[in-house]
Structures are given as C-alpha cells and as structure tokens.
C-alpha cells in the first residue's frame, strides 16, 4: 500500500435528509477530512453537528448525497469487515455467549472452527475477558459488554475501527479505564481509529487529532493537533491547556448554534 494517499479521505462530502416536517435539511456541508493510517482521530461537537453521520458514511452504513468517501483510495460502497463499527449499545447477540459473540465475525468470514476459536480466545485475552467466555451478555456489566464488542471487532483484525460514542453509557470510572485499555490495544495493534464522542476530556485523552464540529449545517469548525505523548496524564498542565482551548472553541460553537436557533424562531 502506498503512502501517497491517506487511509481515509472525505472530499466535499454533503449529506441531506428530509426532516419530520418534510423539508430538506443539510446534515453535512462540503466536508473535507483526511485521516492517516494508524491514527486516532476524535470527532466532537454538540448534538446535531453530524458527527454520527460522518462515521456512518465512512463505515458504509449511509451514502453521501454528493462528494466522495474513500478508504485506501477506493470509494466506500457499503459495510466492510475490514472496517468495524463499535456501537454505543454494543450490538451483542444475547443468545450467544461471550465467546460465541466474538466468534461471529470469524464465522461470517468462513474461517475454520479451530482457527476461529484460537483467534477469538486471543482477542478475549487482549480485552481481559477470557474467564467470562461462557457467560451470556445479560450477565455482564456495561463495561464488560463493550469490551466483548471490542474483542469481536479485533478478532477479525480490521485496519479501521469506527467507534460511535462507545463509552457514553458507562459510568465515569469504567469510562476512564476503557479509554486506557483502548490506547493500550491501539499501541499494540495500531489500527486506524475514528472515535465519536461528546466528552471533550475523552477526546483529548485519546485523539492525536481532535476534530471539532459545528451544527446547522454540520461542518468542521477546527482540527486540533494534540501534541501530547501517550499515556496522557489527565491532570498534567499541558493536558489542561489543550482542554481549555477546546472548551473555549466548543463554547463558541455552542453559542453560535443557540443563536442560530433563536434566529430561526
């Protein structure tokens, strides 16, 4: 694979949808973004800024109205086992055990049972859930469930992980713990990670770059390089200064969004 093109490239992407009142709204307008191979990029922004729409476009669950979405230089035509999405509500199959869930992707690939079970166990080991392999999802905590869905993704060795607010439903301690776990896995496997969140601290903890988005219409407000080495100390002064910068920009976006709403009324 040549280094001449980025891993993921969005050019002049526009997405429209018909609102409940019947008029057409622009969810994303003329959006350009390039993500390098092995990079962690966090998308943040207030609700309605289209961050989930972008990740769905990249993962192939939605199609752009105009413009192009390319991964590895090829246009995205649909979901791909090489680009796995991790959902906030886990998407685990309750009738399968933990191991069965992790095996699903390998079975879909048609990998032989012996090899599949080796790979699944390896992935479970990576997220520290080997001992829970025979449990059903309803017996697990939210954090464990999300680790299972991460293991299920890692088992098929994807080059890209899309994560749509994966830790938003978890309590604060579990969230911090999983952020560290994710970074550890990323440093070991080096997938490209696109991570959507509304938590600015989470974005600065994880992202090499943080893309701040603004609503009405959804667009990129600012791309911030977080030049901090991993593991990041959340209490460090550099961390705080990035945090301050992002918060100020976020407040600006938020105020603009609110003004926009007032203006519409």
């Amino acid at each position, binding site marked *: 694979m040549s280094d001449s093109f980025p891993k993921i490239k969005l050019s002049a992407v526009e997405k429209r949808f018909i609102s409940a009142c019947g008029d057409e709204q622009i969810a994303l307008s003329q959006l350009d973004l390039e993500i390098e191979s092995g990079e962690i990029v966090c998308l943040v922004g207030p609700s309605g800024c289209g961050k989930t729409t972008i990740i769905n476009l990249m993962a192939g669950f939605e199609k752009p109205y105009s413009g192009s979405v390319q991964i590895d230089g090829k246009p995205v035509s649909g979901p791909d086992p090489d680009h796995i999405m991790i959902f906030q509500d886990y998407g685990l*199959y309750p*009738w399968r055990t933990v191991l069965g869930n992790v095996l699903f992707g390998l079975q879909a*690939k048609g990998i032989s049972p012996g090899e599949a079970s080796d790979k699944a166990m390896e992935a479970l080991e990576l997220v520290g859930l080997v001992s829970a392999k025979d449990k059903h999802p309803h017996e697990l905590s939210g954090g464990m469930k999300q680790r299972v869905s991460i293991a299920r993704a890692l088992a098929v060795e994807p080059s890209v992980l899309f994560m749509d607010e994966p830790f938003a439903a978890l309590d604060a301690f579990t969230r911090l713990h999983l952020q560290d776990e994710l970074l550890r896995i990323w440093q070991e496997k080096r997938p490209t990670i696109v991570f959507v969140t509304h938590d600015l601290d989470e974005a600065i903890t994880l992202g090499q770059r943080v893309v701040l988005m603004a609503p009405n219409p959804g667009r990129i407000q600012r791309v911030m390089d977080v030049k901090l080495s991993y593991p990041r100390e959340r209490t460090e002064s550099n961390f705080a200064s990035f945090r301050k910068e992002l918060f100020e920009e976020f407040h600006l976006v938020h105020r603009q969004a609110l003004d926009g709403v007032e203006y519409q009324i």
Partner: protein
Amino acid sequence: MNSKAFKIVLPLLTGTIFVALWQFAAGRYTPEQLPAPVDVLKAIKELSDNGVLWGHIGISLIRFSSAYLLAVVVAIPLGLFLGRFFRCHAAIDPLIQVLRPISPIAWFPLAVLWFGIGNAPAIFIIFLAAFYPVLLTTISAVRGVPEVYIKVANNFGAGSRMTFLRVIVPAAFPGIMVGLHIAVGTAWIHLVAGEMLGAQSGLGYMIVDARNFLRTDQILAGMLLIGVLGLIIYRGMKAFEQAIGRRWGVAS
C-alpha cells in the same frame, strides 16, 4: 407464615370456598340442573371405569397437537418471510386483518362442506385458532429485531443466509415463543368448539353426548377435565419457554 406457604394455602382456600359454594348452590337445585361436586367426581370415575374417557381425551389431544403443530409449521415460516419482506407484508396485511377477526367457529359450515364430518373440520378450526397468534407475533418479532443486530451482521460481512438464520431467527425467537404460548390457549379453547360441532369423539363430543342424555354430571365432568388439561398444557408450555429462555440467555 412465609410467602411460599401462602402460595399453597391461598389457592387451597380459594378452592375450598369454591367447592363449598358449589355444594351449597347444588343443594337448591335438582341434580339435572346442577349436580354436586361429589356427583361430578363420581361421573369422572364412571367415565374412566367404562373406558370411554381415555379414548375421548386421547383423540382430543391428538387433534389438538396435530392442528397446533400444523399451524406452527405453517405460520412461523410465513411470519418470518412476511416480517422480512416489507412489500409482501404490505400487500398481504389487509387480507390478514380482515380474516383474523372472523371467529374460527364461523368457518365451521364451510369446513364441513369441504372436509366432511370427522377429524378434519375440528382440526381445521383448531388450526385457525392457533394460526393467527403465531403468524402475527412472528411478523412483529422479526420486525422488532434491533437494527444494530443487522448492522453488525452486515459489517462483519455475513451473507443474507447467515444473517437470516443466525441473527434474525434467534433474535425473533423470544417473541415467537410468546405467540406459541398465546396460541396454545386459543387452540385449546377452540378444540371443544370444534368437537362439539362436527366430531363423533373427543371431550367436546363427550359434553354434547352427555347433554343429549341430560347427564349434567358428565357435562360438568367434561368441563372440569378440559380446564385441568388446559392448565397442564399451559404449565408445560411455560416450563418449556423458561428452559428456552435460559438457553437463549434472556431469562433471569
């Protein structure tokens, strides 16, 4: 007293009061109008001793289970299909909505014209009674499969066959079980109706036959047996459902 003891004592108390009221009421009427509880037990013993009862119960159970299984075997695949293909469902749904409110008993004259007297009209009626609950719950179970399950399957590159058999069917299964459960009840209720109308055997026929000879004790015996057998079947179904739930990892 703990709650477990209450669970035994309270129903026993209700049963005793019911039998006492019945006994009291029976004292005020002739045995032809309302026989006493003891007379009904005697009637059951009499029917059992002369061997008629077991034959009737046997044939009723055979009709019930064959019609029920037939309904399940037809309704589940049809429901899976209609739940999956929105356009087909949109086309067929109006027809289902019109046919469904027609009581299976209303089909009886046609059933006799088509199938004659015997097992077939009774089986047809029980079939109809079980068919709609299974069909409708299967359709809504398939349509209620969370979107994220399908997205995950597509994302991992599962083919349409794997998505259907290993995601949609198991995801819809608990919902389908509810339909199977409801259908047991409606089918059992219509068993008696079906047998009263056309058959020459079975518990429903036994009641009609007893009426012709004004054996009120045997009428009540038949009713009591239908109730008890219905309860046993229902309980069996519930145990089966719980076992499935544990296997599926959804029951607590």
